[in-house]
């Protein structure tokens, strides 16, 4: 018997959440970092009595077994309480919420930019396949996709922030300004450089894929027939190319959410941008299990939402999917 789509989707989501939290818990517990040592500080830990250490361990629960901790967290998590972050000394949900706004703005900008730029460049390269514009775009794409994001971030900071002084050298708001004085323009201004750097890796990937698909479309029977009816390459790309490129582009674009999220960890670190990525690094280095699990769950949910979106849009865009359900997630 088959359950309705919504039920199946929800079941899949629940399994994903359980799996992600178990794996993250296991990774944190097998990490060599001692949360007590990491959180009280090197000097304080050295001068601390054994009784005090044991008291702290008992307070944070790091003396409990893996499954005890895991189940203890889970019994609260189902009620919506994801625990308290050791490093930020605040409920995990609050930390994630405050960090997510900056991160999501950054990722959304980079995501849209990568998608639009990648598609345009890919279509131009595909339509001019083998000629000069194609060779230039392809060359750039290969170089960019081989460039590590953090290195590119450092170079961008050096060139545009330090030498040229066009953009601030980090953070999401001006240094020394009180939070109430920060305007949206200030935030956007601080967003530009990290968003550009973050989008670059995605652009290369999407451009190369779109180029291949464009070449396929232009070599198809329907493109040949359109040509036989007097249409030129530009017309064929416009009338038949775009709609046929849309489906693979959607898949790519939704799948690239995970890549963008991964890249944001590095980019936020380089640009000292206070977002989820940076919080994840802090949580990992501080043995902050609740925050790390919380962030892992949030990112998994985001990627799941991306794939779900692709599924839903497939049904809308592709007339051949009428009555059928996609299996992308």
């Amino acid at each position, binding site marked *: 018997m088959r359950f309705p789509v919504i039920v199946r989707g929800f079941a899949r989501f629940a399994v994903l959440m359980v799996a992600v939290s178990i794996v993250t818990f296991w990774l944190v517990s097998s990490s060599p970092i001692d949360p007590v040592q990491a959180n009280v500080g090197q000097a304080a830990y050295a001068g601390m009595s054994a009784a005090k250490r044991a008291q702290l361990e008992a307070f944070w629960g790091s003396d409990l077994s893996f499954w005890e901790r895991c189940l203890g967290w889970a019994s609260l998590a189902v009620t919506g309480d994801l625990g308290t972050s050791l490093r930020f000394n605040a409920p995990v949900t609050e930390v994630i919420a405050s960090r997510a706004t900056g991160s999501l703005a950054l990722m959304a900008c980079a995501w849209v930019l990568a998608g639009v730029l990648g598609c345009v460049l890919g279509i131009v390269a595909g339509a001019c396949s083998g000629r000069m514009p194609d060779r230039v775009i392809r060359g750039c794409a290969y170089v960019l996709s081989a460039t590590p994001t953090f290195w590119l971030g450092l170079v961008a900071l050096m060139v545009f922030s330090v030498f040229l002084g066009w953009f601030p050298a980090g953070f999401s708001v001006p240094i020394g300004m009180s939070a109430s004085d920060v305007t949206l323009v200030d935030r956007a201004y601080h967003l530009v450089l990290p968003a550009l750097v973050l989008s670059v890796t995605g652009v290369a990937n999407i451009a190369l894929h779109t180029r291949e698909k464009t070449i396929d479309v232009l070599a*198809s*029977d*329907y493109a*040949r*027939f*359109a*040509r*036989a*009816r*007097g*249409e030129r390459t530009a*017309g064929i790309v416009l*009338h*038949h190319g775009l*709609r*046929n490129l*849309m489906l693979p582009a959607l898949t790519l674009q939704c799948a690239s959410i995970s890549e963008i999220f991964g890249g944001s960890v590095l980019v936020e670190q380089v640009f000292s941008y206070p977002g989820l990525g940076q919080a994840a690094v802090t949580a990992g280095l501080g043995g902050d299990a609740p925050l790390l699990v919380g962030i892992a769950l949030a990112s998994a949910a985001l990627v799941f939402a991306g794939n779900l979106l692709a599924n839903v849009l497939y049904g809308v*865009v*592709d*007339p*051949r999917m009428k009555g059928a359900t996609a299996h992308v997630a």
Partner: protein
Amino acid sequence: MKERANRETDRENRETAAGEARIECATHAAGVSHHASEKHHHHTHATGSHHPGGHHLLTVEHLGVSFTMYDPAAPFFSGKRMVSRAIRDLSISVHVGEVLAVVGASGSGKTLLADAILGLSEPNARVTGSIWFDGVPQDAASLARLRGNGIALVPQSVSHLDPLMRVGDQIVGFKARSRAEKHARRARMRGLMEAYGLDRSVERLYPHELSGGMARRVLLLSALIDDPRLIMADEPTPGLDLDLAVQALGDLRSFANRGGGVLLITHDLELALRIADRVAVFRDGTVVEETAVENFARPELLEHPFSRALWHAMPEHGFDVPAKSAEQLAETVGSML
């Protein structure tokens, strides 16, 4: 495409030399004419072949299509550049009001002929020879202008329709420069759909929702909407049952009867004989004989041994394949029937 310098004088001459029984032919040297049944331009006429204006609707002479490629038989890296000749010295003519069937085995390069006439050959192809359309010599650029504007293609299968676009929008096409023009084309399409028995709802369907017979008519209508003078139909029958195939060919026949020309490219000699006026027998990249359909009544009327072998191999003539004389010949014939 080489051009003929004496084209203009030819055209003037045909005005003066047009007689009753003799047919003046513009593509000949000045002053040459021929009887209706006489062989000229490598072909003989059918009863319905006309020469209005003294020239053919389409003339292809000494067409050659060759490809530059690396020797596929040689081992990797040591393959030398070679020229593969797909079509050589091919000549055909289509008259106004007639269906000329180019009949040859599947995969023998017949589609390359259509590509050459449409000026759509691959970049590594070298095309030589002369093509006249309506008495005017053509080059690559002018052939490109004729696409959808005098010459129309009716392609093989539904895969030639954009899978994500509604059929109606595809028939209308993207030639209209203004809203009014687009409207006019849509109205014209509705008229054609009615004339060809397609329901109004077909307009809203996507290609994957079409039946085989509907798809054929949609493809035909995509050609007819541009009001062409010549239709090239590339294998319009595979995948159709006999009734639908006959119906599809009947549509082409009636287009010719209304004064158009049809170049039917097919592997199916039997079906071609049913509706064509003349048959061009295609073999090994060239046309070995271009003759009236009536000549297929008796083998003596056929000139080329391959045409006669084809005749003998037809089911109603006993599947007689001359195995001992030329095995390869038999193989080719066998694949065509």
